[in-house]
């Protein structure tokens, strides 16, 4: 079997950069990353260089191992004799080299997850944060809209109310409910929303002829039975998002002025 050893070596050397880059991004698609090829490669190579620098320093400090660039250069050389000599050196030091690359690959998978988690935890990516241009996940707009990630810590709303207009039998119908969950398709487009406590009304009922009463306003909406209402995003003509803040005040059970329920 004829193996293009230099290509294989370059692949192994650059692979941690590609893994690290894809792990660091919060993207809403599961299909192929359609970012420009040049940008992908440039970012991956940059991350690979930084990761190798970090690992080489750790190897030097913790294990007194020195990086020998000549061996690497000889490995990717086109001269078979030079390559064979370098391969022999690698064979002698196979265990530490294998440990180096295995630990680097594991780290390039785990570290970005931790970084991403810390960015979200401390809201470094929220709109208006000092370093948001660096930390913001630009490929995840729905994430920011529907999880409230743009709100500062402590000022987050409690839930999201969704109003959507859907055409049913050539008639526009307004659906209102509370957002519970949302899903994306493989291209990162919003696929469906799961709503709770949904009610609906035809838009045609929006034209009152005179002053309305509370009962009339409420009566225009028809509650929809069921726990989860699935709204396909592709069928929604418009989508309105409202953030609702709830302020609680626990009171003694019997002293509480209870608002009459319907």
């Amino acid at each position, binding site marked *: 079997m004829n193996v293009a050893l230099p290509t294989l070596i370059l692949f192994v050397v650059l692979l941690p950069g590609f893994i690290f880059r894809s792990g660091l991004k919060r993207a809403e698609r599961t299909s192929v990353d359609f970012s420009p090829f040049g940008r992908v490669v440039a970012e991956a190579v940059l991350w690979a260089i930084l990761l190798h620098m970090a690992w080489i320093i750790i190897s030097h400090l913790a294990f007194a191992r020195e990086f020998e660039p000549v061996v690497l250069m000889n490995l990717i050389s086109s001269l078979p004799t030079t390559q064979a000599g370098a391969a022999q050196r690698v064979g002698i030091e196979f265990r530490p080299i294998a440990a180096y690359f295995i630990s680097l690959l594991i780290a390039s998978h785990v570290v970005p997850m931790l970084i991403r988690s810390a960015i979200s935890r401390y809201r470094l990516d929220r709109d208006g944060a000092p370093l948001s241009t660096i930390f913001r996940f630009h490929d995840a707009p729905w994430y920011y809209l529907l999880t409230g990630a*743009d709100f*500062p810590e402590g000022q987050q*709303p409690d839930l999201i109310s969704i109003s959507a207009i859907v055409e049913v039998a050539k008639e526009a119908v307004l659906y209102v409910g509370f957002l519970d969950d949302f899903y994306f398709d493989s291209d990162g487009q919003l696929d469906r929303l799961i709503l709770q406590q949904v009610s609906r009304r035809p838009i045609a009922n929006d034209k009152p002829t005179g002053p309305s009463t509370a009962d009339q306003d409420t009566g225009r909406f028809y509650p929809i039975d069921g726990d989860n209402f699935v709204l396909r995003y592709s069928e929604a003509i418009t989508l309105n998002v409202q953030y609702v803040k709830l302020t609680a005040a626990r009171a003694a059970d019997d002293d509480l002025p209870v608002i009459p329920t319907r």
Partner: protein
Amino acid sequence: MKALKSKLASQLLADPAASGQLRDFLVNRNVSDLRQQAPADQFVIRSKDGKVTVRASVVPKAKAA
């Protein structure tokens, strides 16, 4: 992906009466000027742990907040 929903909001949605009131508040909030009485923005959540009064308000988008 799970949407934004606090523990308090989950408690409220688990109470049919309170969640119905919240829904009425949201859908009628903008038509309150057409009638005498504004929709109540305060609800009572009843659960096995007791009662909690909550006040609801619609907050602006984070950037404008």
